[in-house]
């Protein structure tokens, strides 16, 4: 069950401060990498909501965020809508598509659920790839960024855009933690542990799963809109299943079902990718080895390991007498 513990609060606050500092002091490439990891962290948060707290391991979350990018780009460049209203519409549309996918896939479990979501992701990829209206494999260019100049924020400035992405990450974290602390979120966790019992208690299991998937889709819409604005160009590779796989790796690396973990995982993943690729093209190999070590270390992820370490320290500090009395 999710609780906003002091450790989570401290880490999130520290993370926001460090990222703000990096955004304001790093060079252009550093800021671009920061923006890239922040967008990936938002997608990972959305995946952790369904996979970590609902047991719905989705292999279409990358595709759904890519779809969000295409919805945003279409609204701005084809239909001439402003970026602000396009972000809102994108969130709603992606949320609705996700809800529908969640509704259909919620009848399946385990490997079948993964395959069903993969199939939806591939369908979206094929549709975008073959659509001449959406630019096919050439993608879409000339995507505008949100105009916040009335409040003295210039999103064409990479620092401002990175800070805006950080703000979106904070909003996403707050939104998802609110969902997880709600009746709906609590019920979702219950369903993850025992769907049979939840049903026997009278919970509308299918509706709860679909609603959580839909809410996750809203966050994916935001991430997609940010992604489109970041590069001001999008291509079907955004919807590739490898993108969804990458997000899953990020969540496991950081800590599945911890919410703060995926943010740490996204940071570690992007930083490792860029640092290791300075020395070798085989950065996937190194990340793969690290992932195997994390999984073999109890599958708790980086945050999970940190949490366990702190718990152990606390127990040690409490001394054997207190431990025995607690027992």
């Amino acid at each position, binding site marked *: *069950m999710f609780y906003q513990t002091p450790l989570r609060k401290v880490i999130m606050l520290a993370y926001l401060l460090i990222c703000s500092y990096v955004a304001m002091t790093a060079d252009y490439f550093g800021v671009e990498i920061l923006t890239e990891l922040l967008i990936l962290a938002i997608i990972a948060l959305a995946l952790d909501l369904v996979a970590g707290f609902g047991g719905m391991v989705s292999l279409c979350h990358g595709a759904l965020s890519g779809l969000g990018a295409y919805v945003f780009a279409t609204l701005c460049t084809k239909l001439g809508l402003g970026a602000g209203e396009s972000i809102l519409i994108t969130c709603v549309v992606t949320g609705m598509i996700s809800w529908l996918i969640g509704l259909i896939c919620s009848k399946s479990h385990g490997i079948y659920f993964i395959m069903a979501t993969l199939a939806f992701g591939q369908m979206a990829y094929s549709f975008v790839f073959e659509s001449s209206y959406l630019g096919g494999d050439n993608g879409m260019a000339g995507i505008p960024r949100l105009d916040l100049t009335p409040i003295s924020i210039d999103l064409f400035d990479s620092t401002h855009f990175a800070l805006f992405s950080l703000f979106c990450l904070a909003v996403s974290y707050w939104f998802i933690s*609110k*969902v997880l*602390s*709600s*009746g*709906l979120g*609590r*019920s979702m*966790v*219950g369903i993850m*542990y*025992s769907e*049979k*019992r*939840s*049903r*026997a*208690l*009278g*919970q*509308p*299991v299918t*509706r*709860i799963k679909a*609603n959580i998937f839909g809410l996750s889709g809203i966050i994916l819409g935001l991430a997609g809109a940010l992604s489109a604005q970041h590069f001001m160009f999008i291509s079907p590779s955004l919807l590739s299943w490898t993108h969804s796989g990458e997000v899953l790796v990020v969540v496991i690396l950081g800590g599945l079902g911890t919410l703060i973990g995926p943010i740490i995982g996204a940071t570690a993943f992007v930083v490792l990718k860029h640092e290791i690729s300075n020395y070798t093209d085989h950065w996937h190999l190194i990340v793969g080895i690290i992932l195997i070590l994390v999984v073999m270390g109890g599958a708790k992820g980086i945050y999970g390991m940190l949490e366990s370490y702190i718990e152990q320290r606390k127990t040690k500090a409490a001394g054997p007498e207190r431990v025995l009395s607690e027992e």
Partner: protein
Amino acid sequence: MLEVNKLSKHFGALHVTRDVSMSVAKGERRVILGPNGAGKTTLFNQLVGEYAPDSGSIKINNEDVTTWSVAKRANFGLSRSYQQNTLFDGLTVAENLGLAASVKANKSTTLWRDSLTSPDVRALVKETAAQVDLTPHLNARVSDVAYGIRRQLEVGIALATQPRVLLMDEPTSGVGPEMIGAFHQLLKRLPEDLTIVIIEHDMGLAFDVADSMTVLNYGEVVFEGSPDEAGQSKLLQEIYLGTFEDA
């Protein structure tokens, strides 16, 4: 309160329940007896909607619920406990009871408000925990508590929805004599207007709590009557102890 009429279910050539009928009045304690494989749990699975019957009907409070989903029946006031613990293992005892109580309090699908901290859910959790003697274990993780406590929680979750009809599938399965005594007390403490149907193998407990008994054998009702009549039934003795020829 609960009317079962000619309920039949077969899996292939095997008839697990055959024309099972029974009528349980409000507040009645009905014990279902029968040897292993008699169809008792399958009957429960049909009553709650986990299995669709091949024929027959089920009425609760004069409402035909035969085609209703599991969740709809549960919301109408039918609750069950399982023979094998079906708990939310990674959560605490309080969270387990809270998830059940939040359904009763109509807070299980609310957005933005925490169902587990809502005053009515907390009050229901406290009340149920006291009812099933779980108050000292509320903060313990289910995976860390003893088997007997889990059996109590199994019943507690079913009770936290404040049902009209409670189906208990072998609540004392796998527990020691001391725990059976505790369950005995627990059953005595339950509200008098709650209709209870229990599958039970412990004869002492069964005969003590039952207002009436139904005996199933090979999926058929072979006896229905009071505990006194059941105690004197030769048929029941044959089913449980076998005939002289069998020996």
